Structures are given as C-alpha cells and as structure tokens.
C-alpha cells in the first residue's frame, strides 16, 4: 500500500533535520579545532610544522570526502573497530572541514598587514601574544564571511553521509519518497528545510560583517 505525504512523514523529516544539524555542528567544531591548529602550523617558524600542515591539507583537499567516509566507516570496522555511523560521519566530515578551514583561516591571518607583526614584535610581545592580542582579533573579522559561506556549504554537504546508512535530512527525503512516491511534496519540503537553515546563516554573516567592521583598512 502506498502511503501519502502527511504529518507523520513530515515529522520524520524534521527529526532527520535534527541529525543533519547535529552532524554539521559536531563536524564544524571538530574541524575548527583541528583546522585552527593547522592554520597556525602553516604559518609557523618551524619548517617541519609548516610541511606537516601543508601535506595534511593537500592530501585531504585532494581526496573526495566520500573516500574519507568509506575509509573511516568500512576501513576502521574491518580493522576491528566497531564505529557507529554518527561517529564515522562526524569524524570524516570533521577532517574534511579542518583542511578547508585551515586554508580559509591561514588566508585571513595572512590578510592582516605584516606591519601589525612588526609593530607588535617591536613592543616586545612574544609570538603567542602577537597572535592572541593583535593578529587573531583582526583575522577573525576578515574570516567571518568565508567561514560562514563554508558552513552553509557544509550543511548541504552533510547529505553525503547517507551512503553509510546515516539518516540525515536528504536520506529521510529519499526514504519517504520511496514510500509515498510524491517527489514534489517530499523533496520540495526537504529543499524548504535546507533553505530555512542556510538562509538565516547567510543573513547572520551579513550582519556580522557590519558589526565587526569587516573590510575597513584601519
């Protein structure tokens, strides 16, 4: 018997949206921490640190996130680790996010004029103090638009996790469509939900740009 797209089906989509959001937040947080560390390493005085970070970023950016996902889900379970889909999914997406955020943030840090480094080191600050008090606060403002832009991409890209059996918003839509065969209603709803998540994020970015004075030179 074919069901129709009604309230219970819609609530199924809403619950799946919850998982999409959880996945996005976890992957973004994990990716931020790792990516932040790699951004700093890319700019470190030690050549070894710089090279390690470059290689990491290059490899992750050159490999489809799908392969990372397969590796962490199938590969690790073959190696004897029993990994639940949520962990495998957040881990792989987190790794993917870290490589891109590392580059976005490295660019933001480099966009701070080098005279700010000179002025702060001439005031006897350590490199850590320069980052903390002078460079990062300015880099943060520069990084807001590209970071939020990337976050919006991430919300949509989380749909890739359905391949390891994780039921996110996109996967939930497919499942319901298989049961109801009402693609316009189902995928229309899915699209609207994605829009309702991403549109406010884009607006937030615009707002932050204004509040933080992004783009002013001094």
């Amino acid at each position: 018997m074919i069901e129709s797209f009604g309230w219970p089906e819609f609530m199924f989509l809403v619950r799946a949206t919850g998982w999409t959001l959880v996945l996005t937040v976890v992957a973004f947080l994990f990716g931020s921490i790792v990516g932040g560390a790699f951004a700093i390493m890319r700019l470190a005085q030690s050549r070894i640190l710089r090279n390690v970070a470059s290689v990491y970023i290059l490899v992750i950016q050159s490999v489809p996130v799908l392969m990372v996902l397969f590796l962490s889900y199938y590969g690790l379970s073959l190696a004897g680790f029993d990994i639940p889909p949520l962990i495998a999914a957040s881990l792989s997406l987190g790794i993917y996010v870290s490589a891109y955020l590392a580059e976005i943030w490295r660019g933001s840090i480099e966009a701070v004029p080098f005279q700010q480094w000179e002025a702060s080191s001439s005031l006897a600050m350590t490199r850590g103090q320069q980052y903390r008090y002078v460079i990062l606060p300015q880099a943060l403002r520069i990084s807001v638009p590209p970071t939020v832009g990337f976050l919006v991409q991430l919300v949509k890209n989380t749909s890739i996790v359905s391949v390891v059996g994780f039921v996110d918003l996109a996967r939930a839509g497919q499942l319901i469509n298989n049961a109801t065969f009402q693609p316009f209603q189902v995928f229309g709803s899915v699209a609207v939900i994605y829009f309702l998540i991403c549109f406010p994020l884009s607006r937030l970015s615009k707002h932050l740009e204004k509040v933080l004075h992004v783009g002013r030179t001094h």
Partner: protein
Amino acid sequence: MSAVHIENVHKSFGKLEVLKGVSLTVEAGQVVAIIGRSGSGKSTLLRCINGLETIQSGRIEVVGHTVTYTDEKLRALRKDVGIVFQSYNLFPHLTVGQNIMLAPRITKGVPKEEARAQAEKVLAQVGLSEKFDVYPDNLSGGQQQRVAIARSLAMQPKVMLFDEVTSALDPELTGEVLLVMEELARGGMTMLLVTHEMNFARSVADFTVFMHQGKVWEMGPSEELFSHPKTPELAAFVKSTLK
C-alpha cells in the same frame, strides 16, 4: 657607556648589499638625524638597531644589549628601544587607550591601574588626552602618529627610533608630530631619526649623519654639516632638498 654603538655593520638583501660597513656611536641623551637619498640604507640601519633586520656581520650594542637574534634577547632589547613607523601601525581593533596599555601590561606585567595612569600621562604628553577611548580610525594621520609615539613611550624606552614618521602625512599635519618629537628631545630622550625634514634635523638634532651608497658618508654637528658640507655628494643632496 654610549647608548647606541654600531660597529662595522654589513647587511645584504640577497645579493644587494645595503649597508657596507657602517659605524656610529650615539651617547645617551643625544638626538641624531640620519639623512640621505632613498636607497642609501638609512631606514635599514635604523631597523637593524632594534633587530627588525638581521645583520650579516659587525656588532650593534644598544643600552647594554648586544643585538642577538633569539626571541628572548630581542624581547629584552625591545623593552628598552621604542620605534615609530612611517605608517603608524596602530592596532585598529583597539582604542587609543588599549593600544597604549597593551604592551606594558602583557610584556612587563604592569598592573592595570598603573598602566592606565601611565597611558594617560603619555597621551597628555602628545596632547591627545581626550582621545583615550577613540578608535584609531577616527583620528587624523597626525593624531595617529602621535598616539604611536605615546604607545612607544609607555614602554619607558631608553632609546627611541623614528623611521620617516612624517613622510606619510599631509604637510599641514607634520608640524604637530615634529613638535611632540622636539619636546621629547628637549626632555633628554636618546633619539635616532631617519627623516626628510631637513629643517627639523638642522635645528633639533645634535648630530646629523649623511648616508650614501650604504655608508656613513659624512657626519657632524647638524648646523655645521648643513652649512658647510665637506663632500660634493652631501652638498648636492642639501642643495636638492632646498628646492
């Protein structure tokens, strides 16, 4: 002991040698102007004194520190040597007061109240007391440069370096900055300044150094140096700046 002692310093950028054996001694309390055409190495020499540029050979001693390129030695040196740049380089995300208090608080551990009192004092010294809570963006170039001077002074340096500090300013704004520097000089601060303001060098600096082709070409008491240049190069330079 002299405040700044520079001995046979050589400095190259790649294959280009910009300092070809420079020696110079500045006593405590002296004001020394360094003049010369662009490319003569005068800014590079100044930047070597606080270790912003590394030298290939020779020796620089500043108020008891031998310029050495380890982070720790450089920080110790820079607590005693202030520098003011052509482009001010204030921290745009901090207010004037925060700009001035930041370094003393985090690098010297000066308590908050003391740092604030000190900041108010140096800000008054440059005549900008009412700008404490203003962001650099909202100041004129001349005011920003005076704040930059105040920010350096708050570290209580023993030597101050000025790298073409009025070159980026509109002519009508240079006067207020030069006035602040003149008062500093009168207060006994040891100062080295790279400048294109010949009148200022002549009237305020005890000594003037003329650099040419990476060398100290000629030096002497300012008045004498300007009125009786001994080398044809300096004579030509002085003449060209009078136009």
